[in-house]
């Protein structure tokens, strides 16, 4: 039975590519891995001969380093600004290395040690006492037992004492289960490792202890600097999202160009021509750009004639920029008044964008 899903996991989305890679993979595989490191690399960076698409853009050596870190005793820590595709990278790596990206601990202020170690089915616990049947393993424990990758999202959103539960798991590669008997220990089977993602600068995040830091190799994921790359990425993701919903639109390439230029300008505080502007506090990530384009495309498809225009994007942009600070509206207004206005004279899409943006209530 095939079930409709809003967003299938990476291993489902790319099942065909993964099996093509596995079939051709002649290189040695580290113990517990579903693919060889080279095949994992091809899965992320693409292989035209095997019909494998590129899924991660902008920093190929980073992918190499990440794969190699997963083979080591160290965990892999992906850090960087919000929306730089850290989670996407971790999902793809987990899917390629161990065939599943579903073992996830989502870090939040409410995460407890139980989410990292194990909990109990209290009905069974009361009925039978502590037993293997009553134990509810965490995704981490599951991953240890089956030799797979566990993903820890937003680790710095957990309080440090909860984060530190990972220290012994990473260094000993085992977890004591004292309730099941004094000798009861779950030991990790080969293939186990942790990919954590963290945001070190956002509001409301916690510090990480140096003991924990030492057990990870850090990789910083930077926003995509090349507008061409970013536009391709945004368009590809849009196509994926629209494909699942069966929506078709036109004119998205030119609009994506406008959108990516706008995002790059606002993100860096400087246009490609070198004009300075005030950066909004809001996160202007590639992921946000995809959201904007997606929403704009839906508007064009369902409420308009299906032709995506600059005006659709302008209306959606408001929701992204006016999130963090009321001043951001003024900053966007200034950007529209000075920079967009000038570009409006040069192309139709920019003109649509300008006219719609000017009528927004931006504070």
């Amino acid at each position: 039975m095939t079930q409709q899903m809003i967003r299938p996991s990476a291993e489902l989305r790319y099942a065909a590519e993964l099996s093509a890679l596995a079939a051709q993979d002649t290189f040695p595989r580290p113990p517990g891995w579903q693919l060889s490191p080279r095949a994992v690399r091809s899965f992320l960076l693409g292989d035209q001969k095997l019909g494998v698409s590129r899924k991660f853009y902008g920093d190929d050596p980073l992918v190499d380093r990440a794969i190699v870190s997963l083979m080591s005793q160290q965990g892999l820590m992906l850090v960087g600004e919000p929306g730089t595709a850290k989670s996407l990278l971790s999902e793809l790596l987990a899917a390629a290395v161990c065939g599943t990206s579903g073992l996830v601990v989502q870090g939040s202020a409410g995460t407890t040690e139980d989410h990292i170690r194990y909990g109990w089915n209290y009905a069974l616990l009361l009925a039978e006492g502590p037993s293997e049947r009553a134990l509810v393993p965490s995704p981490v424990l599951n991953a240890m037992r089956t030799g797979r990758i566990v993903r820890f999202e937003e680790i710095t959103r957990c309080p440090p004492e909860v984060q530190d539960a990972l220290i012994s798991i990473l260094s000993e590669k085992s977890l004591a289960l004292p309730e099941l008997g004094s000798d009861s220990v779950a030991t990790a089977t080969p293939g186990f490792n942790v990919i954590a993602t963290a945001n070190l600068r956002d509001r409301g995040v916690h510090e990480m202890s140096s003991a924990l830091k030492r057990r990870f190799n850090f990789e910083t994921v930077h926003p995509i600097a090349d507008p061409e790359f970013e536009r391709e990425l945004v368009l590809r993701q849009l196509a994926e999202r629209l494909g699942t919903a069966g929506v078709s639109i036109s004119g998205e390439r030119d609009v994506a160009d406008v959108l990516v230029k706008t995002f790059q300008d606002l993100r860096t505080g400087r246009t490609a021509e070198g004009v300075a502007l005030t950066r909004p506090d809001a996160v202007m990530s590639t992921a946000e750009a995809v959201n904007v384009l997606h929403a704009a495309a839906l508007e064009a498809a369902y409420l308009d004639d299906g032709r995506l225009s600059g005006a659709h994007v302008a209306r959606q942009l408001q929701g992204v920029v006016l999130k963090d600070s009321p001043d951001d509206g003024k900053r966007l207004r200034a950007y529209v008044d000075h920079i967009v206005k000038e570009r409006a004279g040069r192309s139709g899409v920019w003109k649509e964008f300008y006219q719609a943006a000017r009528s927004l209530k931006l504070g």
Partner: protein
Amino acid sequence: MDIAPLEIPALHDQDRDLWVVPIRHHSPACAAHLERMIAEIEPAAILVEGPCDFDPLIEMVCDPRTRAPIAVVALKDAEKGEAGHDAHGATRRAVSYFPFCAHSPELIALQAAQGRGIPARFIDLPSTAREMLDETGDLAEPGDTPGRSLLGDEHPFDVGDYVTALARELGCRDGNEVWDQLFETRLGSEDWQGFFADVGRYCACIRGATDPARMARDGTWPREAQMRALVAQYRNEFTGPIIVIVGGFHAGAMFAAATDQPIAPTARGGKSYLIRYGMRQLDALSGYGAGLPLPGYYDRLWQMRGQGGDGLSRDIITGFAAHLRNATGEHGEAPSFPVMVNAIEQAERLAMLRGRPFPTRDDVIDAIRSSFIKGEIPVADVPLLAELRSWLTGHAIGEVPPSAGSPPLVEAVREQARKLGFSVEDGDRRSRELDIYRKPRHRAASRFCHAMTLIGTSFANRTAGPDFRNDAALDRLHEIWTLCWSPQVEARLIELSEVADTLDEALAAVLAWKLAALEEEGQGRNARAAIDLFAAATRAGLKGGAGAMLTLVETQIVEDPELASLVAALTDLVLLRRGRDALGITDISVIDRIIGAAWRRVLILLPELADYGEDQLRGAIASLADLRGLIELARSSQAPMDIALFDDALALLNQRMLMPGLAGAVLAFSLIDGQASMDLLEDRLRGEMRGGYVDPSDRLAFLGGIIAIARELLWVTPAIIDAINDVVGHAEQADFLALLPHLRLALMPLDPREIDRLAEEVAIRIGAQPGDLAALVAISEAEMTANLALDRDLATLLEQDGMA
């Protein structure tokens, strides 16, 4: 688009028994395979791409006492009309370098030839040929920029469509990684034929993708014609196999028949020396398109070639960790043992993933990056990675035999530096503190540093010490210097060796040129520059000859028609006299004489202020203010200036009809000087302010003059404020409004505290309490927040405009 089929060059021309070896400069793999090849072919002669006028230096390059990195530095006399040529015979000439490191294939070839007793020759155009120098080929200013490299341009290895496409295909980030992956990893293989065939093919592809216009521009054609011609000539001269070593880019062109006669080096017009060279400069050259970056890495690879690269990453990672431990504090925590183990594993696995037999440069750097740094790192400017780059660049400087024919000046200065305790063995940057008053040896070292700076080497840079010009830190006992004996230092000395054999002679020559230049452009306006030069020369310990500068100062002063520049020069002279201990001037009689002459000149020029036009008024008042400062300085430092004579000059000036602003200034001066009475000043002030001038600004000009010269008069003579108060108090409304802007202008030099004080004085006079002046204006919280926000926005705007 039609693409011509690529001609892949063979290695061996059987008809002529000629082996053409394509290489890349500073490539250890090329060097290693070349060694194997020479051992197998046993050639009768070896020909190397390099300027043919360097042949006489080959013996020295191969001397057992020579230790790479070294370079041949070539000097070319600037021709008339060329940059660097000047009328004074200054030896500013084109300087270019031909560097060798231990793993240069060229060096390996020359050494092999010497070891086998077979001839070795260079076959490129002479270093003086126009094609060997580009438009930026002159090194007029010394500094850390490497001069022009005579190594063939290797830019095509890094940029270009072919290399970019290949990098994408191989998953490499740039042309250097491609080169490492394809060639340096084959360092340990025995198959030199296969290796050079592949280098040849690779270079032929690069050449195929290179714009022919570029080759026409950069002198490729004439250089290749010369190489072909010399190869043909030596082919006739020697019997047996010949090995020709050229940059891979040119290899294919060597097989064509020679069409031209070789161009022989001319006897005149150029000179070349063998000098010690540095790893840092080698690295910098790679930025100019020659050789591989981070030569320290390749040097290690070369040292470990016996193991074929095994253990290289371990050696580098542990070595770098040890380096960090020694320098802990500067770069954070030193890496622990598990971190090092992790990094080594990481490097090995990266190499495996990328399909390399052992970790190459980028693998090792990547491994250190992911293992050593625990945290988020910015796109650029990562201190630890910068340190790694610097460490992998290396800081070694080579050695050349004493017989290398270094000019006497270089030997003499090096000897002198060693005696004074300076390190000339490596290119490291060091800091040294000199106790210049109490320790004669330090004093001598300080003089040496000053002299080296003055003659234009980049050896020493003073970061702290007494400063006579700004009259600052004259009591400071120490000088702090940053020192670096880079190859550029020796290059500059070699340039100067034409005119001097010792540092003192070089100093005298450089000073003579500078002085001549000053005289030429001067026309009486360069007294200050000459004084600076004199101070620099005395600090450098120049015994004779410094007097010439003072003579120049004297002439310039006598001819100086401007009071302003004269006062400035005289102030400098008084400061110079005052700082004589710091400068080490023992005999001040000459300075005293010039001060006397300059002072007389000031007194002559002073009355001429009366003839100044309206547009010069501001300058005239400023000169008077400077003059007042000078007189106070002279009094406090007992300079030999007869102040009494000044009174006469001032009296002369006072008798003239002056513009109101100047009159105010002069009268204020006279008052301070005790020549005028307070009453006179007050009367004049009242008269001026009530005056019937058409332009109301003239009424306040007098007050402005007083304040410019001596604003303290406002406080010491209450009559001035009384006068202002009276006039303003009695003015009609319209009159007051006319005066107001000019009053503000006149009082502008006052600082806020003085303005408050003035307001209080006025308040007392009109019967108000000083406390009443400050009115409290209530401001709501909302308004304040809004204002603060405005303030912040303004600050942001200013910051954006670069005005923060």
